[in-house]
Structure formats: structure tokens, C-alpha cells
């Protein structure tokens, strides 16, 4: 069993996203784990975050403005792995920073830092050779996104070569938008479940424990990002307290569905 599969085997899981290098990342990640996060998604900042709304865009700029480098991100990941040997850690970001030194280099760094999986927003299955083979060869999960526009004809291509879990994006849009109606999410998740045994985590627009509890009833995971990132933006160095509190409320809601 991998760290990811054992996390999801415990029942509905809370997946928490923050941007690397925005505030005190080690302390913020610690707060997420203390609050009860089951999986950590660490965002790799990029100058041009095309799929992100204002909250995560600003976090990217704060992080880059503070001088965060790719080497720093892997140090943060390695330090996290040393402190929290059991908690799965996934990197999420854009193609260019991941592939600029070559996919093999990136995959090797992931292995060295104890990163369990990678989500790349702008490498669809059609461009899989850019990153997929290197990650699979290194035993790092390639977590793909499925969206409301991923119809039945396309779903097999998305699932082919995916591992770890499937990230279902609940709305056609960018991060931080309004959540889709729960009925639509239910219908789409049930449809996808018929085609895969991978755990399905639902994200984009989930902000409150109430929303998280509803989604936990129909999916294997709930992803929360912008709401946490906004706390980092608001509280800066003092973010760990508020992050822990929100994560705890979300985790209670998600785990309550177990």
C-alpha cells in the first residue's frame, strides 16, 4: 500500500492545498496535519497560473516575490517528509516549472524528497509523454483532473495512465469560484466511479465544513484550497492558528461521513 492508497482506505479524506513559499510553509503544513488533513497538496508557484482565481494567483505572486525557487520547494517537501513520515504529499502546479530541467530530473527530485504524486494542470493526456512516463517510471503517482466537460468518450483517455487518485474538478472554471450544485457533482462522480477503482477527490469551490460534509458522502476525498490560501494571505506569519482551526472543522465534517 502506498501512502496515498492507505490514506484513502480509511474513508473520505480531506485534501488540503497551500502554495509553497507563501508564508512559513513548514509551520503552515504542520498546522494542516495537526488539524487533521489526510493528504497535502503543495502548490508550486508559477508566474502565470492560468487555472487559478485571484486568491491562489496572489499566493503565487507572494511566494515568487519572496524568492521561492524549485530547489526551495523540494527542500520544503523533504523536510515535511522527515517530520510527517505517513502523510501523503502531492505537488500541484504547471507544466513549465515541472519540465524545464527535463521530466526525469523532476521525477527523481520527487522521489528524493518523498513526494507521492504530481498534479499538472496543463498537461492533458494528449501530451502525456511530456511528464507521465518519467513519473510512472519513478513510481510517483500521476494524478489527472477530470472536469464537467470530460464526457464518456474522453474519460478512458483521462484514466489511462492516471494513478494515486482522480481529481474531479466540480465546476468548469478556475479555482476559488462558486461550487457546482451538489446534484451535478453526485451525478458526475457516480458516472466516473463506474469506470475506475481510483479514489475520487472533488475540488474547486469547496470552502465550508457544510459543503465538505455533503461532498464526503459521495466522494472519496474533498479538496480545499482557496479558503486556506486566503487565510495565509490574511494572517501571514500568524496563519498556522487559523489554518489549524479551519482544517479541524473541515476534517471533522469530512471524517464524520466515514
Amino acid at each position, binding site marked *: 500500500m502506498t501512502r496515498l492508497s492507505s490514506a484513502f482506505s480509511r474513508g473520505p479524506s480531506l485534501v488540503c492545498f497551500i502554495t509553497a513559499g507563501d508564508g512559513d510553509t513548514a509551520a503552515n503544513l504542520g498546522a494542516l496535519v495537526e488539524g487533521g488533513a489526510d493528504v497535502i497538496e503543495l502548490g508550486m508557484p508559477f508566474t*502565470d497560473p492560468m*487555472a487559478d482565481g485571484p486568491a491562489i494567483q496572489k499566493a503565487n505572486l507572494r511566494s515568487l516575490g519572496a524568492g521561492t525557487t524549485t530547489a526551495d520547494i523540494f527542500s520544503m517537501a523533504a523536510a515535511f517528509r522527515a517530520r510527517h513520515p505517513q502523510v501523503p504529499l502531492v505537488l500541484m502546479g504547471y507544466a*513549465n516549472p515541472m519540465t*524545464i530541467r527535463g521530466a526525469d530530473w523532476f521525477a527523481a527530485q520527487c522521489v528524493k524528497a518523498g513526494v507521492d504524486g504530481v498534479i499538472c494542470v496543463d498537461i*492533458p493526456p494528449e501530451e502525456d509523454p511530456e511528464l507521465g512516463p518519467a513519473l510512472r517510471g519513478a513510481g510517483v503517482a500521476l494524478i*489527472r483532473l477530470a472536469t464537467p466537460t470530460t464526457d464518456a468518450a*474522453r474519460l478512458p483517455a483521462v484514466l489511462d495512465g492516471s494513478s494515486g487518485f482522480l481529481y474531479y474538478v466540480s465546476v*468548469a472554471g478556475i479555482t476559488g469560484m462558486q461550487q457546482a450544485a451538489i446534484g451535478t457533482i453526485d451525478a458526475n462522480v457516480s458516472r466516473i466511479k463506474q469506470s475506475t477503482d481510483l479514489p475520487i477527490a472533488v475540488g474547486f469551490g469547496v470552502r465550508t465544513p457544510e459543503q465538505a460534509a455533503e461532498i464526503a458522502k459521495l466522494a472519496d476525498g474533498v479538496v480545499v484550497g482557496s479558503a486556506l490560501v486566503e487565510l495565509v494571505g490574511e494572517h501571514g506569519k500568524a496563519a498556522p492558528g487559523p489554518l489549524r482551526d479551519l482544517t479541524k472543522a473541515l476534517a471533522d465534517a469530512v471524517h464524520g461521513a466515514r
Partner: protein
Amino acid sequence: MNDIPNTFRNQPDERGHFGQFGGRYVAETLMPLVLELEKEYRRAKADPAFQAEFDDLLEHYVGRPSPLYFAPRLTAEFGGAQVWFKRDELNHTGAHKINNCIGQILLAIRMGKTRIIAETGAGQHGVATATVCARFGLPCVIYMGATDVARQQPNVFRMKLLGAEVIPVTSGAKTLKDAMNEALRDWVANVHDTFYIIGTAAGPHPYPELVRDFQSVIGKEARAQMLERTGRLPDLLVAAIGGGSNAIGLFHPFLDDPDVRMLGVEAAGHGLDKQHAASLAGGRPGILHGNKTYLLQDEDGQIAEAHSISAGLDYPGIGPEHSWLKEIGRVEYTSVTDDEALSAFQLLCRTEGIIPALEPSHAIAAVAKVAPTMPKDSIICANLCGRGDKDIFTVAEHLGVAI
């Protein structure tokens, strides 16, 4: 040149790749739409009615064919090759951008889309998009960096007169790259009813191909006009490059003519050792805005801010077909600084009575360097892809003149 293919004109491959460049690096939400656009484009290309409507609008609405003009006083000034201009600055809306907008809005209508979005830097593509939207009665939203909104007020007003909504983009550096990010964000959120009219030969496949095809009217006309007027093909083609649409439009129909050399001119801004917009000269291959291509970036793959006096060239990337043409050696690329472009701008005003845009002023500056080294019976054809009305404020400021 290693491995010379027997034609340079059959790119991209079926996956949208020009060698290692191009492709479809977009979020999953957009992928089905991008595939659908490709299918629809194939159908349109095979449909004589589509081609007929495109040709008709280019003739009667845009004013094509644009003239091919021999520039006698500029030729005498340089003292070498004959200098000819393809006069795309005479098009409706004052630049080549409209050729592509006509093609794309016809595609949008075929696909049943009811809302148009676009990005713009200098505002030329924004004006051309707003124009075709007014012509076809579709709502139009233009994303423009807040910095560009401030420095291109006349074009902002033009777009508004044409009925477009102009949204200033305040993220990032507030220029063209950020406007493109914001247009992509709009597109993912409105995939069902919205068509994104991309303004240059870049973005996810099939955009680089279809923009090139629509702009190829420039090169097709130039080739026929040159043969008719001189009985032969030009020795050298020259065009400025922002994303590369006017250049690929001129070059593509000549790619298989082995005796025709081609020169693409990037913006060297303050100089290649300072801030500039020359992605081939100063960048490395990477992935941005849906395609793999040469990009200005740091060693971690963070995209750099470009600089050019010409807002239309102020972009840290380039269309993927140019990256490929550079790598295989079929086209040569050079760069020209802000100051050189400003001098060429003034030179053309005074020698030929034509006020060029700052973008083609870069091509003219490159012609100024090569023409004197070529024999008098040789022929250069440069793309005069835009007129300078939009730039007189910028130029006045640089010349220290208050207007």
C-alpha cells in the same frame, strides 16, 4: 540544416506538433473544446462555402488584395537591394490582424458560439476582434493589461465605440501575457458558449495552424503579385515577430521555394543584454499558453517580463512554427532594438510618405541592415503589417515632443 524534409509546408503533425514544438498544453476543461475546434476547422477547410465567404469578406470588407509596392526612395537610400512592401497596413482597421479575425469569427459562428473573447496588447487585435463582432452582431469581451490600457487609450476608445467591453487586467505585470492568462480563465469558465479569438499564431493546437492559414493570404498574394510585376520571386522576405502571425502569413506560401530566404525580426528592446522581447535570441524551449515554444524564462521556468517599445511585440513567447523553422534552419531570425526601430519609423515617414506601426518598423530596421549588402538587382519584400496612427503618441514621447 540537418534532415531536410521534402516540404516545409505540411506542419503540424496530427497531434499539433511542429517537431518538438506546439501541442495542446491546456487544462482538461478546455481539452474537449480544443478537439472540437480542430474537427470543425477541418470541416470548414474542406467546405467551399466557408472559403468563399472568407474570400468575399476579405475583398469587400477588409479591402484585399493589399498592394505590393516598390519603394524607390528607400531603395536609393539603402543603395542595395530593391525594397518592396506588402501593404497590409492599408487593410480595414490598419493591420494584418483582421485577416485572422474574419476567419475565426466565421468558425465561431459555424460552431454556434454566441460570445467572443480575445486578448490584446497594443489593441490592434482587440480592435480587429471588436470590429468583426460588430459586423456579425456578437457580444465581445477584450482582456487588456492595465498597463497597456493606460498607454493605448485611443485603441481602448475604439474598441468601446465598436461595442466591446474592455476589461483591464491587473494581475501579474498587467501586460499582454497577463491579458492572455485572463482570457484563458474566462474561457474555462464559459466553454459552452464562448469562442476565444487568439490574436497570433500561438496557443494550443489548432490555433497556430489556423491563424497561419488565415494569414497566409498575405504570402499568397505577395507571391502572385511579385511574379506578375517582376517575373520572379523575391530573394528575401522580412517580417517583424511578436507572436509571429504576420511573419508566418508572409513566409508560409514561400517555404518550399528554395531560393527565397526569410528573415524574422524580433524586438531587442533596450538590448539583448537588457530587457527585451526576443524569445528566439534570448529564450529557451518551454511550455506556456497551450504550446511548447521558445520562451523568455529563468532557470526554474518562471516566465520573464518582456520589453519592447512596440506593445504588439511585447510578449515573452513566439508561435511554435517559428521555433521549429529556426531549429531546422529554414528561416533566419534577428533582432532590432527600440532605438533602431524608432529610426526606421522616421526614415519610412520621410522617404516614402508612409507612417508605419512600430511593429513593422522593426522589419524596416532589419532591411536597413541587409539591403546595402545585397546586389542592386536583388529583391527584398518586407511586410508592412500595420500603420502607425496608434503609435504617434509613443513616438512623440520618445522624441521628447508634447502633443
